[in-house]
């Protein structure tokens, strides 16, 4: 995998995770399933990408985690947005919209 691809996907994954967590706290599998569901399977989130991303975002201070119990009384780690995370989500969203707008204009123009 080349560096550019990783960065692009990483940035996108971050945005998707932040967006998903806006709805409330969620464990890792829940986040993955929710993203798959919302994007109708366009993004399938691999565990090998999800956990490193969660870890990194935690270290950035965007999300926090705590152990809790799942619906079926299983132990699971739950993630939730922090204040910094909400702010990050706004910036990321704005940025993404700018990029998306730019790209779609380019595509339309040609």
């Amino acid at each position, binding site marked *: 995998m080349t560096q550019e691809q990783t960065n692009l996907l990483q940035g996108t994954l971050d945005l998707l995770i932040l967006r998903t967590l806006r709805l409330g706290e969620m464990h890792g599998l829940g986040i993955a399933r929710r993203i798959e569901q919302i994007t109708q399977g366009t993004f399938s989130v691999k*565990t090998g990408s999800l956990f490193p991303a969660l870890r990194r975002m935690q270290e950035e201070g965007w999300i926090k985690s705590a152990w809790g119990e799942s619906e079926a009384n299983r132990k699971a780690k739950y993630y939730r947005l922090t204040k910094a995370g909400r702010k990050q989500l706004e910036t990321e969203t704005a940025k993404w919209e700018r990029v998306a707008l730019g790209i779609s204009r380019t595509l339309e123009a040609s």
Partner: protein
Amino acid sequence: MTKRARSGWLPRAISWLRNVTHREQDEREIAAEVSAHLALLIEEKVRAGMKPEEAERAARVELGGIEQVKEQVRDARAGAWLDTLVRDCRFALRMARKNPGFTGVVVLTLALGIAANTTVLSWISATLLNPIPGVAHTSDLVTVARGDRSDHPTPPFSYPDLRDLSERTQTFSGLLGYHDDYMSLTGVAKPERLYGALTTANYFDLLGVHLILGRAFLPEEGTPSAGAAVIVIGYAVWQNHFAGDAQIVGKTIQINRHPYTVVGVAPRDFTGCAPGLRTELWIPLPMDRDVWGADRPAYRGTYWLNVMGKLRPGVTTNQAEAELNLLMQGIVERFPEYHQDSPNEISLDPLWRSPFGINGYLYKVLPMLLGLAGVLLLLACANVAGLLLVRSVGRRREIAIRLGMGASRRQIIRQFLIESLLLGLLGGGGAIAITVWTSRSLAAFFPPSNLPLTNDAHIDQRVLFVTIGVSILAAILFGILPALRSSGLPVQAVLKEEASSVSLTLHKGRLLSGLVVAQISLSLVLLVCAGLFTRSLQKAQQADPGFEASHLLLASYELSPAGYTRATSAAFDRQVLDRLSALPGVESVTLADFSPLSFSIHTDYLQIEGYVPQPHESMEISRAIVGPNYFRTLRTSVISGREFTAADTVDSQLVAVVNQAFVDRYWPDEDAIGKQVTDGRDRYTIVGIARNAKYRLLTYPSEPVIYLPIYQAYRSTQDTTIHLRTTGDPLTMASSVEETIHQLNPELPLFNVNPLSVTMQLGTLFGRVAATFAGSFGLLAMLLAAVGIYGVVAYSTRQRAREIGIRMALGAEQRGIYRLVLGQGFRLTLAGLVVGTALAVAFTRLLKAQLFGVSATDAITFASVGLLLAVVALVACHIPARRATRVDPMVALRHE
């Protein structure tokens, strides 16, 4: 990335700290999360209707390997690069410890290669780069020399000329002048003969030396009419003679039995501004009368001052040189009578090649030695690269497994380079340990001499810094090839191979051979240089100096500081000669104001009867003041006429002897006997012609010399050296000579009591330094090359054991096998010799100027070095070849 730096450096830093401090807890946390995730996945699948076992398998597939996920999380962790680095370093350390023999050989090889460089560098740092210890900024200081740029400059300026130049120059913020020579610290418990300088008043200020006590000279103390008996003393004098007395300023001390008031103490490091010479006393110029009984500042025709200048900011050396030449021309036009005998061209030099002191010689020798050391290091790198390459073959499986497990090529290269770096730094550490000792070796080459030579080469910050840099550079140099080679393995192929049958790919074999050829050729270069220097030194030592050095004892004394006048000096000298010649074991004895080959002969400006100098021809000619029987004692034959006798006194006709070179140059085809020569004050008649003798350097051509008799040509500033020819070992006479002098004057110190054969070592100092170091570099290079070729041939023989076994099973003779292996080594050696010869021819051309009596492409040296190297290489190949013939085909094949 920038986004991150803006928003989250603090949380990241905190995370990093936590990651470092809570390593185990973090590991448990990661493990717990991943397994919880797996459990959730399984549960999800079970709920979707899968059987438990099926669900677990599917979940594991989806997860993609628990360990991998954990590893990916670890990599995302803040400070992950540090973890990797630590892990790689730990692994490198483990590899190094696992193979102590290999590590030892590599580290030793590198340590020696790097130490050769750091040793020479420590000398360069202490001399060329730090020409005036105690003066931090020397880049705007230049030396000002007049006349031919020669290896033995004489002080070029008179005081009035210097004063005129100083007053008019616009390009210099100041010019300083000094004259250094020995003076005696008297009136203390233990009188000592010390090197001191008469200086202009601006000396310390211009150099930027801040005295640790008291003050520098005042401008009025420097004017010729001043009679201020003031002195600045060196740190060592202050400590040794005055116990570091804090109240020393204002006290009176004695120099040459005259009182001086101490006005300052120089800082510890500062030992004057002639590189490599140790000055310890400083007195204003006008005190010449007191110190040396002369009044030289008064005369425009007396050239006795070394001059240095500080350039104004923004002025280039060329501009300053042009300006001084213009000013000098004006002076010459105004005072032609004082300048017509000498060339007046002025040249400026930066201090690293200052003609005053030792740098004038070192700047030619040291960079050359550094070049040789660089070649040695290159060779060491080739050697280590070969070793690493061979070892990496043994590690092919390990590497292939790591590549197969998903390590990237970059990771493998990084791992290899870190291992190399570790070896390089260990080598650098070893080199520093070696250099602590070898940096002092330059001083060990200085023979006892009448010069106050000083050398304080040691490992300074600069050397340390460069050592680390060189170690890293070397590590990259020898590590990169094996790293690139090993990381590009075809994983499948390697894993399928049986470990024992892994052989060199053709490519790698070629690379290894190339490294061996490089080692042989580089060692040939070094050996040729060593051979040339050694032969050149031999030639110099065997060269006929024109006198017989063995069985001659030298001992010096100085009369004028002890209060002797011209008349009492002559009487004393006579008594010395009478008493010494009466001693048993003495063949003959004489006196002179110099000794051969110790840079102590003086010069004079002469007018020669019947000879018209060319415009600007220097008439500065070597002048020796000698006693009766000088030529008989030194065994320098007098070709015609007579030599001096005790009857040549002030009351008889003034006479002189000249050497053959003098006659050849100034009176070719004429009879020199009876002609006359004037030295500015007196007219001497030639009564004898002597054979040429070398007094400066053995490697210089013979130059004209005039000899004047000691009782006629009195110089108050001279010291007198006894030349005693003994029947036995000259050193055994030392104590009776000292006794005899002390019977005549118990107070008079006798110094430099040494055999001439010892003191004349100074004349070959730089030749010996070059020969010794080039020699040891060469031998080391040969050893490394031998080990290198042995390693490669032995290794490839081991790899070919099966092939050899088959050959033998098919009936090949032992002799054939032997030839097969030796042939491989021989081909490599031959290639190395050819390449090396070409390199050496190119390289030795740079040494031409340093060689004496031997050409830079000396056939004998090249041939014998090539032969030596070939023999050594073949001996190194002989061992594996012999081993190959003992291969038991059954064992070799079964091993498969």
